C-alpha cells in the first residue's frame, strides 16, 4: 500500500513460501557521506529527511548527541516540547501503520478511518511547527517553537477527540473476526529469535521482550513522566497490532501529562558552530524501536562521521523466518506487520 521500493524474491511450493531473498538499496542516498559535507546545523535538516514518518526522532537523536559533544544544558521547556513531538509522531506513525496493515488484509474501511483520525494528530503537529511531516522543530540547543495557553487548550481538546476515535478503532478490530483470522498465528517470532537477531521496538515487545529506551535509558523529558511499556507474549501480527494500538493510547496519555506539566521558560540555548573533538553515542526510541547515532567530531564545523542505525534494519533479517511456510496470500499481512520503513534502512 505504502509503496516503498524493495525487492523480494519468493520461492513458492504450491501455496507456501519456502524461501525469500530481499534486495534493498533503491532508496540509498548516501546520507552518512552527505552529512560529512555539511555543517552541524545543516545536518539537522539532512537527518530529518532520512525518513518522513519518523523525522523528529532522527533530529532528536542527532541534536542530543551534538549537544552532548558541546556540553550544552538544554532548557526543560525544550525537552518537554521535544518529547511532545516524539509522542505525537508515535501516534501518527502507529495510526499510519494500522491503516497500511488493514489495507493489506483487505479491510479498507479501517485504512480510511485510521488515516482520517491521523489527520487530527497531524493538525496538532502542524499548528505547533508549521509542517505536517518533516517539521524539524529541533535545533542544536533546544527547539525553535513554543506554545501559548490557547494552543495548549486546543491541543487538549483535539487529543480528547483523537482518543475517542482510537478507542473506537480498537473496539472494531478487537471484535472483527475476519481481521483476527488474518493476523493471528501469522508471522510468528519467538522471544529467542528476537534476541538472536537483535530486533527492537514493538516487534520485540510483542514477543515478550520487555525493552523500551524511554524507560530504560530516559532521554529528553522521559525521566519526568509516568507511563506503561506494553508487552504481550504471542509474537504474531495480531500481537504487534495490539501492542501498537495500546502504545498509541499510552502516547495520548503522555501528551496530556506533557501539556499539563510544561515548565515554561526559554526554548533553546546558543550553540557554537565548531564542535570540540570527541565522540558520542546517542539513542532514542523511535516508533519502530531503538535508533542509534554515533557522531565523531574533529574540531571543525562539520562532523567527521555520522553513523545511523534505524530500527527496521534488524527486523529485516527475520523476514525469511517469518515468511517460511506462510501462505502466499498472507505475505502482505506478514510484511505489513513488521512496519517496514525502507527509507530508514537504506538511508
Amino acid at each position, binding site marked *: *500500500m*505504502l*509503496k*516503498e*521500493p524493495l525487492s523480494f524474491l519468493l520461492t513458492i511450493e504450491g501455496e507456501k513460501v519456502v524461501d525469500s531473498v530481499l534486495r534493498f*538499496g*533503491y*532508496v*540509498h*542516498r*548516501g*546520507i552518512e*557521506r*552527505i552529512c560529512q*559535507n555539511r555543517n552541524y546545523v545543516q545536518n539537522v*535538516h*539532512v537527518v530529518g*529527511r*532520512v*525518513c*518522513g*514518518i519518523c*523525522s523528529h526522532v532522527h533530529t532528536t537523536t542527532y541534536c542530543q548527541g551534538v549537544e552532548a559533544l558541546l556540553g550544552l544544558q538544554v532548557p526543560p521547556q525544550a525537552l518537554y516540547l521535544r518529547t511532545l513531538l516524539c509522542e505525537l509522531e508515535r501516534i501518527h506513525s502507529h495510526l*499510519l501503520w494500522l*491503516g497500511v496493515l488493514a489495507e493489506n488484509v483487505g479491510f479498507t474501511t479501517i*485504512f*480510511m478511518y485510521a*488515516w*482520517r483520525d491521523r*489527520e487530527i494528530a497531524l493538525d496538532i503537529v502542524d499548528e505547533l511547527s508549521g509542517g*505536517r*511531516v*518533516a517539521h524539524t522543530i529541533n535545533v542544536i540547543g533546544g527547539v525553535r517553537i513554543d506554545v501559548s495557553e490557547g494552543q495548549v487548550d486546543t491541543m487538549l481538546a483535539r487529543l480528547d477527540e483523537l482518543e475517542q476515535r482510537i478507542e473506537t478503532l480498537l473496539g472494531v478490530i478487537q471484535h472483527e473476526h475476519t481481521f483476527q483470522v488474518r493476523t493471528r498465528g501469522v508471522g510468528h517470532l519467538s522471544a529467542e529469535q528476537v534476541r538472536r537477531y537483535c530486533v527492537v521496538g514493538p516487534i520485540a515487545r510483542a514477543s515478550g521482550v520487555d525493552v523500551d529506551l524511554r524507560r530504560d535509558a530516559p532521554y529528553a523529558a522521559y525521566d519526568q513522566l509516568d507511563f506503561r511499556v506494553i508487552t504481550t507474549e504471542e509474537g504474531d501480527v495480531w500481537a504487534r497490532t495490539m501492542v501498537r494500538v495500546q502504545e498509541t493510547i499510552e502516547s495520548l496519555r503522555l501528551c496530556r501529562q506533557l501539556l499539563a506539566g510544561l515548565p515554561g521558560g526559554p526554548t533553546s540555548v546558543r550553540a557554537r558552530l565548531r564542535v570540540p573533538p570527541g565522540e558520542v553515542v546517542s539513542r532514542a526510541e523511535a516508533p519502530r524501536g531503538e535508533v542509534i547515532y554515533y557522531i565523531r567530531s574533529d574540531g571543525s564545523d562539520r562532523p567527521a562521521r555520522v553513523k545511523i542505525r534505524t530500527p527496521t534494519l534488524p527486523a529485516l533479517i527475520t523476514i525469511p523466518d517469518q515468511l517460511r511456510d506462510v501462505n502466499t496470500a498472507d505475505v502482505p499481512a506478514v510484511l505489513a506487520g513488521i512496519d517496514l*520503513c525502507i*527509507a530508514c534502512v537504506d538511508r
Partner: protein
Amino acid sequence: MWSRIVRWARRKSPWVLHFNSGGCNGCDIEILDLLTPRYDVERLGILKEASPRHADILLCTGPVTRQSRDRLRRIYEQMPAPKWVVAVGSCSCSGGIFRDGYNVLGGVDQVLPVDAFIPGCPCRPEAMIDGLVWLLRTIR
C-alpha cells in the same frame, strides 16, 4: 467529436501510478493522504492504480538513485500513451537535499520528460491537488 469526448474522459478520470525512486517517504505519505477522507481526490476522478498499464499519470517522488533509475524508466515505458509525468517534491524536481549524494543522479527530469513540477519538502496535499488540477487543465 469523438476525440473531444476522449479528451474529456481523460481529464475527468486520470488514473495515477505512484513510484518512489529514492525518497524519504515524506511526499509518499502525503500522496496517500490524498486518497483519505480529508482530501479525497477520488472526487476529481483520480484513482491510484497498481499497474503501469492502467495509469495515465506517473507521480514520482524522491531523487533518482542509481538502483532505481532503470526501474523508473521501465515503468514509464510500460505506461500506454498518452501519459504524463509529475515530479512531486523538491527531491524529485532537482535532487533536493540529497543532490550531491554518491548514489543520487538528481531529479526525475534526469531520466524522464516531466510535465509538471510540484515543489515542497515535503509537498503539502493542497499543493499536490493544485498541481494535478493545473496539469489536467492543460490536457486539451
